[in-house]
């Protein structure tokens, strides 16, 4: 199965790839591993040195996760000289996640600590719960330090807490002050926040005002899908209800978000981009839009892509309504060789002090509310965004995030709504009604309903 679905190319290349695969399998001695998609890294096995004292713990993550970048592993190794921490990273979650599932079900190839994205956490807990270690009572874990809803998301139906929250994605709106000035809109972040406070429709109205003043040139926002994700993220119910039933097709909040995002597209307020594609990256550098709904973790991304030219132009204002988009967890697979040490590492990495460090250095916002009073968070300002008090802005948003239930296929539903449905409204001009039906059909097919 894996080999067939993973096969990329035509005959000769497949033959060559197979030959290489065979060679790798033989030399690596991993012939008993389950079939996995090719081109994925196998986490390094633990090694114990001659004295048998030094233990290597591996942490498997996706994307630029931030733990390593914030220097947490180095600190941990300094504090625990007998522990060596190594990270294996896959660039994208949609490659990382299937591999994590195959490794979990096979009980091999796993890192000692694995990251899980919030869109997948419900499915992991529901289907892989018996292959994960309980972390709620691990040494160093304080349940009261976390946001209650984040803690609940990491707790399985049987009451065992199997995942510890790392970050959440409280939302703000990042905007270009120079473009707002050109459009005659307020440029001071407090005034910008008041411009649309409380209602996403006021955000749309601001966009219309902007377009009237700036008919040509940069669009008001990057993409309709981005607006939809932000609006959905601030709803108390999204794709699943409290009973775990899929309600995406009938939930008025989802439909409201859809219609609002479609209005952005229909009125020409978007730059018609798809998020996390090369074109989107280029648009930051080219200044193709004036605002973007930005979860805390996106600030670093904007800074990277907009580059030095954007310094001092970008600023951060409160979003119309608080919401969360994204965020992650750490789990400890039971198949690991050093489970106790791994649990200790996971507890330390997600402790409020360390989460504050990650926020300070990388911008990923803590899911441990105990960190919100730490100076590293409270007084955090972002120099790139004109010294905006990002700590205060995102902490306020995080406290107001509604506790929405998440379901096993949350990530898939969100992605289909955005990339199949709203993308067509935005980029091809398909009618919102017809695109909605296409998205619902694709969701039904993907969920095998």
């Amino acid at each position, binding site marked *: 199965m894996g080999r067939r*679905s993973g096969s990329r*190319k035509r005959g000769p290349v497949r033959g060559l790839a*197979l030959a290489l695969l065979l060679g790798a399998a033989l030399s690596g001695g991993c012939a008993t591993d*389950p079939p996995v998609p090719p081109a994925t890294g196998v986490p390094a096995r633990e090694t114990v040195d001659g004295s048998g004292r030094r233990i290597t713990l591996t942490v498997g993550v996706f994307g630029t996760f931030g733990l390593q970048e914030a220097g947490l592993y180095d600190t941990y190794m300094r504090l625990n000289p007998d522990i060596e921490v190594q990270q294996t990273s896959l660039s994208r979650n*949609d490659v990382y996640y299937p591999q994590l599932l195959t490794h979990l079900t096979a009980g091999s190839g796993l890192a000692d600590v694995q990251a899980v994205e919030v869109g997948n956490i419900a499915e992991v807990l529901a289907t892989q719960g018996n292959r994960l270690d309980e972390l709620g009572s691990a040494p160093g874990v304080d349940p009261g330090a976390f946001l209650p809803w984040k803690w609940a998301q990491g707790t399985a139906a049987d009451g065992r807490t199997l995942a510890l929250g790392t970050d959440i994605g409280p939302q703000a709106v990042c905007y270009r002050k120079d473009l707002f000035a050109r459009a005659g809109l307020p440029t001071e972040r407090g005034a910008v926040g008041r411009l649309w406070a409380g209602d996403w429709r006021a955000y749309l109205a601001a966009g219309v005002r902007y377009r009237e003043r700036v008919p040509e040139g940069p669009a008001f926002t990057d993409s309709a899908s981005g607006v939809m994700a932000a609006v959905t993220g601030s709803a108390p119910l999204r794709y699943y209800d409290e009973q775990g039933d899929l309600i995406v097709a009938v939930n008025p909040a989802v439909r409201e978000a859809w219609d609002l995002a479609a209005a952005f597209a229909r009125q020409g307020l978007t730059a018609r981009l798809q998020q*996390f594609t090369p074109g989107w990256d280029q648009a930051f550098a080219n200044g193709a839009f004036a605002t973007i709904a930005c979860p805390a973790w996106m600030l670093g991304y904007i800074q990277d892509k907009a580059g030095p030219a954007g310094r001092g132009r970008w600023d951060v204002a409160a979003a119309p309504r608080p919401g969360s988009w994204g965020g992650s967890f750490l789990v400890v697979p039971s198949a690991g060789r050093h489970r106790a040490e791994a649990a200790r590492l996971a507890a330390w990495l997600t402790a409020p002090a360390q989460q504050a460090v990650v926020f300070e250095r990388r911008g990923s916002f803590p899911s441990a509310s105990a960190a919100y009073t730490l100076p590293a968070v409270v007084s955090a300002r972002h120099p790139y965004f004109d010294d905006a008090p990002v700590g205060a802005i995102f902490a306020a948003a995080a406290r107001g995030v509604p506790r929405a239930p998440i379901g096993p296929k949350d990530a898939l539903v969100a992605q289909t709504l955005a990339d199949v449905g709203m993308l067509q409204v935005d980029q091809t001009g398909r009618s919102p009604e017809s695109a909605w039906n296409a998205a619902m059909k694709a969701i039904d097919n993907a969920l095998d309903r």
Partner: protein
Amino acid sequence: MTETRTPPEPPERPEPDGRPEPPERPEPDGRPERPDPDGRTEQSGRSEPSTAGPGAAGPRNGPRTGAGTGADTRARGARSPRRGRHSHRHRSRHRSRHPRRTPVGSRWAPYALVAPFFLFFGAFGIFPLLATAWTSLHRVELTAPAEQEWVGLHNYARLLDDTFFWNALGNTVVIGVLSTVPQLLLALGVAHLLDVRLRGRGFFRVVALAPYATSVAAATLVFALFFGRDHGMANWALGTVGIDPVDWQNGPWASKFAVSSIVIWRWTGYNALIYLAAMQTIPRELYEAAALDGASRWRQFLHVTLPGLWPAVLFTVLVSTIGATQLFGEPLLFASGAGASGGADHQFQTLGLYLYEQGWVNLHLGRAAAIAWAMLLILVVAFGAVRLLRGGLARREQAS
């Protein structure tokens, strides 16, 4: 392939087409790659059939046009073709007179020697095939691969009214035709150019093969930027001649064309080298004969080159068709960020991509396995139909 491989025998034997070898005479049309008459007789006398196999992509100026050079003289001195043939004959006679006595155990030695291949073929060829077939008869999720629920042919039956499947099949056919036909025609032209002696020929051969050696990921990402809607080079170039920018990602035809162009770019050189190797097995004497009969270069190409290439053409068509059916990497990476959906409206989602989406995004292993087998069956049916068609045509020709 057999007739093109007929070795040019010593001069006293008539040519394959029954014509005596033309006498030594000056170049009629100054074809630059033709060796001088002395060299030709020399090399035609010594060339062995095995040195000109289709797999030998070695440049022709090795054994053929290089005749007369110092290296060649050395080679001639080292192993005279005549002596080589003699000793070969001698050896075979010797073997027939004294059959080799072997210990009983070594009767099985050949089987032991070929066993590794069959073991690996079984483990990595047959077993996955059968396991996939078995999986396709179950409802299996990647979240719990061990829990299989027997559903019989349900996964196949649902493909019949799965619009995403038919869409993917249609896309696969369209992209397959859009990429294979120009690719093979281009390859023929490139091979013809490489066949001619030109300065830096080795360099151009490497250049032709370079795309094939390039990682598909790297190539496709570059193409994704090239075909960018807002800042892509393709649209910039169109803009300079006054054509409106094209949305290469979302256009149902534009996206297929873009994906096809990546395939063409990547595989033309590979096919060209296969054609080049086949071209070099065509005896030069046929061209000379044709030229004597007054055939133009174009007619020579039609009536000498093409028939000689026919087996190679069949091979490349077969391989390209299989490759087009499995097309995966290019459309996946062309969407760069859209995952395996093949565009917002699945406008360039191929069967391979749909299979991947079902298996690794939607996590439905059973359905993915059914798609995999459906792809195999489609190929088998397609090739079967072609065979039947050809058989029917041949019979009609015989009857008439």
